[in-house]
C-alpha cells in the first residue's frame, strides 16, 4: 500500500492576480510532484495542494520567496489516512 508519510496539504491564499499566476506556475513544476486537490481559480478562492515530503522545503521556500501566504491544512497525510482506516476497521468490527 502506498504511504504518504510526511506529505502535507497546504492551503494557499494568493492575494492578487500576480500571485495567482505564480501559484499557477507551480502546476508545471513537475519535479515537485505536487497534487492539486483544489486547483487555481480566482484570487478569492484558496488553493489546496498535496506536497510530497521530498518537495516540502522547496515548495515552502518558493511560496515564501514570493510572499504568498499559506497554511498547513494537513500536517501529515499518512496520520490522517491511518486514522481513517482505523475508523473504518473499527466501525466494521
Amino acid at each position, binding site marked *: 500500500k502506498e504511504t504518504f508519510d510526511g506529505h502535507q496539504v497546504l492551503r494557499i491564499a494568493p492575494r492578487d492576480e500576480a500571485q495567482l499566476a505564480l501559484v499557477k506556475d507551480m502546476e508545471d513544476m513537475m519535479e515537485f510532484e505536487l*497534487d492539486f486537490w483544489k486547483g487555481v481559480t480566482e484570487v478569492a478562492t484558496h488553493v489546496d495542494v498535496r506536497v510530497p515530503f521530498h518537495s516540502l522545503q522547496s515548495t515552502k521556500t518558493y511560496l515564501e520567496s514570493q510572499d504568498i501566504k499559506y497554511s498547513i491544512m494537513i500536517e501529515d497525510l499518512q496520520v490522517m489516512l491511518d486514522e481513517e482506516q482505523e475508523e*473504518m476497521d473499527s466501525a466494521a468490527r
Partner: protein
Amino acid sequence: EPRNTDSFDFSRYHTLNEIYSFQDMLVAENPKMVSKIVIGRSYEGRPLNVLKFSTGGTNRPAIWIDTGIHSREWVTQASGTWFAKKIVTDYGSDPALTAILDTMDIFLEIVTNPDGYYYTHNTNRMWRKTRKPNSGSSCVGVDPNRNWDAGFGGAGASSNPCSETYHGPSAHSESEVKSIVDFVKSHGNLKAFLSIHSYSQMLLYPYGYTRTVAKDQAELHAVAEKAITDLASLYGTRYRYGSIITTIYQASGGTIDWTYNQGIKYSYTFELRDTGRYGFILPANQIIPTAKETWLALMVIMDHTYKNLY
C-alpha cells in the same frame, strides 16, 4: 455485514464489495421499484452497476445521477449510497419525489470508477483516474472527466499520461465513460444529468471547454441559484455556482459538456462540501450531513426538470 439496507451504516465509508452488496440488497428489498442494470465493465472487468428507480412505464423521461467518477472523492460514493436509500424511503411519503417517480425514472451510478475506487482502498488512497495502462508510458489511468467528446484534447486537459488531468488517447477511450455514452444514447430520453464530485462547494453547468454561453444559461443559472439556496438552508453551507469555465477554469472533455451537447438540458455537476475540512479525506461523520444537504439541491433540480419536461 449488514443483513439489509436498514442496518447499513451510512455514516462510514465502505469498500467496493460492501457497496455492491448494498445495491443488491436494495434491489431485493424493493423489487417493484429498483433494478440493477450493468451498463458495461471497467477496464479491470468490474461491473458498472446502475440502479434504476422506476414505478413503471417504458422508456420514461429520466434523470441520471452519478457519483465517484473520481475515485478518491469518497464522500461522493458514500452520498450516492445514501441517495439510493433516500429514494426508496421517500417514495410515497415525499409528495415531490413521489410525483417525479410517478412520471420519470431515476438512474443512479454510485461507483462510476470501480477500478479506481478499489485501488483507493487497497493501494493508493489518493488515486483519482481510471486504471487502464497507457501505451508508451509507465503512468496509469485517464481522467474520466476529461475523456468525453466535448472539446476533447483542448485546453484544460493534459496530454501527459502522468498528469492527474490526462485526457486519454481518444474521446471515450475509457470503458467507464463509453458505457455511459452508450447508455445515454440508447436510452434517448434523459432530461437531466447530474454528475457529482467533491470538494469545493460548487454547482456548475456547461460549458467548461468553451466560453460560448449555453443557450439555456439563464434557466440553468436560476435553477442553480434555487438549488444552492435550498442546500444552504440545512447547515448554511455556502456554494458558488455558474458555468464551469467562468466559475473554476477551462476544462475540456468534461462530462456535462458532452451531455448538454447531446440535448440533455439540465446538465449539472456538483462539487460537494469541504466544510468539515480535510478535502478528500473528509471525516466520516460528515457523510450524512453532506448527503442530506446535497439531496435538497438535487430535489430542486429534479423537481424543476419534472415540471419543465421538454
